[in-house]
């Protein structure tokens, strides 16, 4: 049952991704309505699957790479729809849905069996800490997608190469605004995730901070986004610089999320 829902959501996301990529090459200036419908269907089914899984295992399904990637993807779709509702930029799907799809693909690749929850994880911190972290990471993921869009459009305007794709893309200011808003949304969440993580670590392992690679890398990520915000507000690092930094920031997020668990030894792997 659970597996069927997961695969269905995967198929819908896949279809949305394919169509959104076709959008880039399509003649018409208007973006089709099929992509958000497919993504929306995927989102709802995915949500049902997560709820189902929650009742099946008795806690929020974030443990293991399978669950983590899947929840990460789901959080990105939430933010995508929020932006779509607020800004109505159809072409954005072409840059966000592929990220969602890749995460779902990863989720599919990892084993989906349920491991018993270790005692230190059985805590009310589990949903709070993870949801804060996942939402902030999702915001940073979308920021990266919009950053890529910004760089492409900026390149077109600078090189004065104004093709059909240029016409379909939104203006620079709105993309920069989205970048700023998403980081101001994601950064406090990320800060809270680190704080709740520290509190939890204290109650579970007896120390707030142990310089575990996971902790170190999330701190590095935190510093990158702090720098982005600080530079924007003080010296006006906006536009291109902000876009490049948010792509770098997301690479750090990816490493914190996957790299640390797969490549380094950490106690923060479940």
């Amino acid at each position, binding site marked *: 049952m659970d597996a069927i829902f997961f695969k269905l959501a995967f198929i819908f996301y896949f279809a949305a991704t394919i169509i959104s990529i076709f959008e880039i090459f399509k*003649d*018409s*200036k208007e973006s089709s309505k099929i992509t958000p419908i497919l993504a929306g269907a995927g989102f709802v089914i995915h949500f049902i699957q997560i709820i189902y899984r929650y009742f099946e295992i008795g806690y929020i399904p974030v443990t293991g790479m399978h669950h983590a990637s899947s929840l990460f993807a789901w959080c990105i779709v939430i933010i995508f729809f929020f932006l779509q509702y607020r800004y109505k930029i159809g072409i954005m799907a072409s840059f966000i849905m592929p990220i969602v799809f890749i995460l779902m693909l990863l989720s599919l690749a990892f084993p989906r069996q349920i491991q018993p929850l270790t005692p230190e994880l059985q805590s009310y911190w589990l949903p709070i800490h993870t949801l804060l972290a996942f939402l902030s990471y999702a915001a940073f993921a979308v920021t990266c997608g919009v950053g890529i869009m910004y760089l492409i*459009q900026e390149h077109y*305007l*600078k090189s*004065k190469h*104004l093709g059909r794709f*240029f*016409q379909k*893309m939104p*203006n*620079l*200011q*709105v993309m920069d*605004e989205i970048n700023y808003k998403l980081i101001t949304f994601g950064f406090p969440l990320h800060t809270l995730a680190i704080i709740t993580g520290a509190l939890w670590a204290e109650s579970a392992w007896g120390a707030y901070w142990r310089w575990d690679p996971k902790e170190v890398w999330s701190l590095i990520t935190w510093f990158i986004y702090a720098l982005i915000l600080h530079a924007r507000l003080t*010296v*006006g*690092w*906006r*536009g*291109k*610089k902000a876009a490049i930094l948010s792509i770098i920031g997301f690479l750090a997020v990816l490493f914190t999320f996957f790299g640390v668990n797969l490549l380094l030894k950490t106690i923060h792997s479940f």
Partner: protein
Amino acid sequence: MKILILGLNHKTANVEIRERLAFSGQKLKDGLLCLREILEIKEIALLSTCNRVEIFTCVNSADTAVENIKKFLSGFHNISRDDFEKSLYLYTDSDAVKHILRVASSLDSMVVGEPQILGQIKDTFDFALSEKTTGIILNKLFKKAISTAKKVRTETRIAENAVSISFAAVELAKKIFTDLSGKSFMLLGAGEMAELAGRHLVSNGVTDVKVANRTYERGCELAKEFNGKPIKFDDFIQEMIHTDIVICSTGSSTYVLLKEQVQKIMKERKQKPVFIIDISVPRNIDPEINKIDNVYLYDVDDLQDVVDTNMFERKKEACKAEQIVAEEVDKFMKWMLTLDSVPTIVALRQKAEEIKNEELEKFKIKFPETDETKIKAVEYLATAIINKLIHPPTAAIKENDENKEELIAVIKKLYGLNGDENEE
């Protein structure tokens, strides 16, 4: 009935003749009603814009109608026939249909794809409707023209993208900024094209306008026109800190704005984007400035390139549009054929025969014991009845020449003969 279009446009007549033949204001109504009197027919419409004057009509005899219209134009506008006759074009039947469809779709316009003409065609039609000068054919023709134009607009990209330098500047500004209404704009110098671009910016919402000119008085004059404030030319660099869009067109032979200056300005602006348009020839702004982050500098050639690409795109799209027009002309001409009396009479008779045969079959099933001779008798009776019933409409179509199309349309409606009415 023949559809006939007599007119002239920017390609066939110079502005002086177009002016003299234009029907503006009250003249439009007078002209329309006079024409109807003269032509002694029901269907006529009159289109008069700055680029064209066209008379759409439906007549029995093209030659006399053309002669009458020419006479009317000469008398009404007090212009000798020799002056305008050679500028006139005449289209009939499918050529006329094609012409009005092309006009409405803006394929015949001076700037292909410009949107105003469709509105003008609609106005022409509405006015003719309110004066009740059109009938079944022109009504259908205008509706066809309007629907075709809409189809062309949605199915091709003929009206997309700017095809003038000043519009291209505004379009680019919209790709840099979200909302122009909150932006400030500075006009540097006073070239004609720069002014025009400024006007487009203002009509797109820019309200904060500054004008810097070498002669301060001229700058004040221009500022007044834009509802903006004049600035001393020497202060413009300082003012750029608070300016998002700059259009430059001074007569200077050297650069008035250098890279280092802009770098300093950007620092003070906290890197808020600036869009600079340099329309001057020779260029007044160091092209190196485009390399600075968040500064977008376009010179007149860059804008011309944008316009050329857009123009080229439009021409490609125009070919697609011509195909749509051709298809729609075909459909219309097919509809025209159905207005002819012979096919209508045939269809009417066929319908009657069908009904008769159906009812006969039902009769046979209901009364299976009826023998052959009695069935023959019933059939005879049925035939007699349908013949009597369809005789008057048939005769009316054959005899009535004046309102034939209307009659045919009514008959088709009453008897449900329409096989083709699947649109509108």
